[in-house]
């Protein structure tokens, strides 16, 4: 993965607009957050291989960036995006990695389903 360059990533987001794409969206603090700090309120969400079709995709702001996808009847967005990669399977993988190298958020789109 490489650091997000807004102009380059915007081109990639534009390329998937108006197509049926499989979505992976995840936010996490890790399953041990409340073990190491019992006062920590651990929340997260995960969705994988749901098909969406967005009419407009935008990457905004300085790093860590926000990325939003406008749907005919709704929205998808992620904040904290630092890195991206167009992988060998033509999938656009966006991720937010914190200073210790831990993933905090992922937003991925693909024209073919992600594995199980």
């Amino acid at each position: 993965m490489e650091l997000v360059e807004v102009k380059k990533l915007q081109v990639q987001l534009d390329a998937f607009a108006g197509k049926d794409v499989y979505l992976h969206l995840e936010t996490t603090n890790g399953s041990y957050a409340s073990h190491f700090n019992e006062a920590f309120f651990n929340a997260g969400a995960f969705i994988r291989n749901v098909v969406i079709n967005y009419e407009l995709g935008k990457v905004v702001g300085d790093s860590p960036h926000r990325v939003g996808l406008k749907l005919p009847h709704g929205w998808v967005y992620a904040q904290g995006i630092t890195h991206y990669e167009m992988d060998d399977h033509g999938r656009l993988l966006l991720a937010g990695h914190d200073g210790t190298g831990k993933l905090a958020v992922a937003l991925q789109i693909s024209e073919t389903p992600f594995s199980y």
Partner: protein
Amino acid sequence: MTIPKERHVLVVFPHPDDEAFGVSGTMTTHIKQGTPVTYACLTLGEMGRNLGNPPFATRESLPEIRKKELIASAEAIGLTDLRMMGLRDKTIEFEDDEKMVGMMTSLIEELDPSLIITFYPKFAVHPDHEATARAVVRAVRRMENRPKLHCVAFANNTLDVLGSPDIVHDITPVRDNKMASMKAHISQTAWMLAEMEHKLAQGDPETENWLTKERFYNYRWEDDFEETF
């Protein structure tokens, strides 16, 4: 404590690297004693968070990396029967409970273990650990002749509620195997191992003790974690 010889040992954990820290020395000891050991690893740790910064992997490439690490860890342990059960990390508790019991029951019926090692329900911290432990306990509960069930517990309240571990194995003779097993999972353990080796080099007794002693609780059937299933 000498480790008694078993007919067959079945180890069930959900993540690659769960076996390394708490059980790998015990597994190697059994194998060296000529006991067949099976490790059923339910997922490939697909949702691991250590991906580096700069990243060395993506959410999609991580499973293949961790699969290779798991195989390398099995080699370090001396394990020849490694089962990868194909579930997805962080989803085990959402699977059908009866299906999970069935998965454990088929392993037990096939292998006829005299000892099963898993996590201790309600003292296992991670939701996948808990779901794995529940499935194993439920499968064993239904058996007429139950094998020994040794459980790993590490929740913050473990000592307060369960007391000291019933079984403590000194795995010093196979320490190198254990270290190699932990190092095999380098994508997830690098930072932790660096700190551990630093402490070991300084002769820190607590770290040495943590590394060479593996601790288990006998599952307490008289204080079962649920009344019925």
